[in-house]
């Protein structure tokens, strides 16, 4: 299955991309996706596991156990600063 991942603001700069498609064998949780992406290196582990980093799945705030299924839009971003 394919999912898309979006990165915003400081996270996009730290990780050097703002969007990617990922091919996966099966559905997984947010925690599992973070572990998988964390294999890319220390920079990834640090950015994704920062206490401020938020994750959304299909544009809804997600928790560690939120399921990511085929076609999902996952987003990682730092604390918001609008207004």
């Amino acid at each position, binding site marked *: 299955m394919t999912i898309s991942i979006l990165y915003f603001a400081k996270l996009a700069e730290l990780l050097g991309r703002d969007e990617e498609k990922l091919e996966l064998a099966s559905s997984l949780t947010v925690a599992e996706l973070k572990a998988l992406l964390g294999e890319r290196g220390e920079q990834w582990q640090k950015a994704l596991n920062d206490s401020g980093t938020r994750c959304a799945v299909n544009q809804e705030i997600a928790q560690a156990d939120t399921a990511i299924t085929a076609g999902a839009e996952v987003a990682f971003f730092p604390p*918001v600063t609008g207004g």
Partner: protein
Amino acid sequence: MIRVQREDFDVQSEYQALLQADSSERFNTGAATMFVGLVRDFGDSKAFELKHYPGMTEKVLERIETEARKRWQLLSVRIIHRVGPLSPADQIVFVGVSSRHRADAFAACEYLIDLLKNQAPFWKKEGEHWVEAKQSDAQRALRWMDSR
């Protein structure tokens, strides 16, 4: 009404729109409150930019409006947030609320901007650095969680 846009907005027009939303046979609006957020001048004339997560931003703002309507008796709600490059003194955000009575209008307007600042996916960039989230903003949003 929720809008995310690059263009500026006109407060007088938004005020008129708030009042016109009262389409009942009798005019029920007794109070209108409005909040406008502006870009402060930090004195170093750095480029200032607002980014957002299109789609999710609108969803979050709609959810915040729905929650406000559950808590208070509101007639009309208008939220506008600008994105893109901005300069000191530019308007960034507008929150307008109309209701029968001022207590509901005051409380809902403050609630909407507090939750927007804490939950809507917008990010400010000044020059080369991203603005850090403030603990005081998180506290302001949190205090609504245990005051229903």
